[in-house]
């Protein structure tokens, strides 16, 4: 069974500072994909960043980067230079390859950026 764990229900960060959101997962699959999604209050869920498990290099998208530790089954999200618009729920998601694109989501971390 695949599980995704986000152990930080709520976090806060000062504007312009850096914050790291944690995510761990459990799987016996060798080929899979990992995602971070952002869900702002009362707004649409959007993809922040994705990582292919077969790639050793950590994915980066502007101020967002991940620390992917495959052996430890860890996939944390780092947000640099936090902005007020980063306030949102963040969901970590796991999708095994070759299984029809089934997604498994964590319980989410509510991030508040403080001005």
């Amino acid at each position, binding site marked *: 069974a695949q599980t995704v764990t986000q152990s930080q229900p709520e976090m806060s960060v000062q504007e312009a500072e850096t914050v790291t959101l944690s995510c761990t997962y459990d799987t016996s699959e060798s*080929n*899979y*994909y990992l*995602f971070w*999604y952002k869900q702002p209050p009362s*707004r*649409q*869920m*959007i*993809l922040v960043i*994705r990582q292919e498990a077969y790639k050793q290099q950590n994915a980066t998208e502007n101020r967002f980067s991940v620390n992917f530790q495959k052996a430890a089954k860890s996939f944390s999200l780092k947000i640099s230079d936090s902005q007020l618009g980063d306030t949102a*729920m963040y*969901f970590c998601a796991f*999708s*095994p*390859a*070759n299984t*029809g*694109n*089934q*997604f498994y*989501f*964590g*319980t*989410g971390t*509510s991030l508040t950026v403080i001005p």
Partner: protein
Amino acid sequence: EADIYQTPRYLVIGTGKKITLECSQTMGHDKMYWYQQDPGMELHLIHYSYGVNSTEKGDLSSESTVSRIRTEHFPLTLESARPSHTSQYLCASSESRGRALGLSYEQYFGPGTRLTVT
């Protein structure tokens, strides 16, 4: 911004009513999904479809039903709404062309329908 739409955005309805939540996407995605999400909580998959005339139940048991007669349209129906159905319902879609190559594409989400059953 992904081209996936849900209507209505908000719905308040009485117990026992039949309702249909609409979901449409213009991206030509084969795969579509329905999730149930309580406020600030995780997403639970309730239905999914891999193509026209293909529907499956998800991990979370649901009294709702779905249909997939057209690629772009994936409505969810509750025959008799109850207060326990009060929740947010999110529709999503994704590509499937990469499946043979072992690829996995991200899901695109609609804005959601917030349902309240009184």
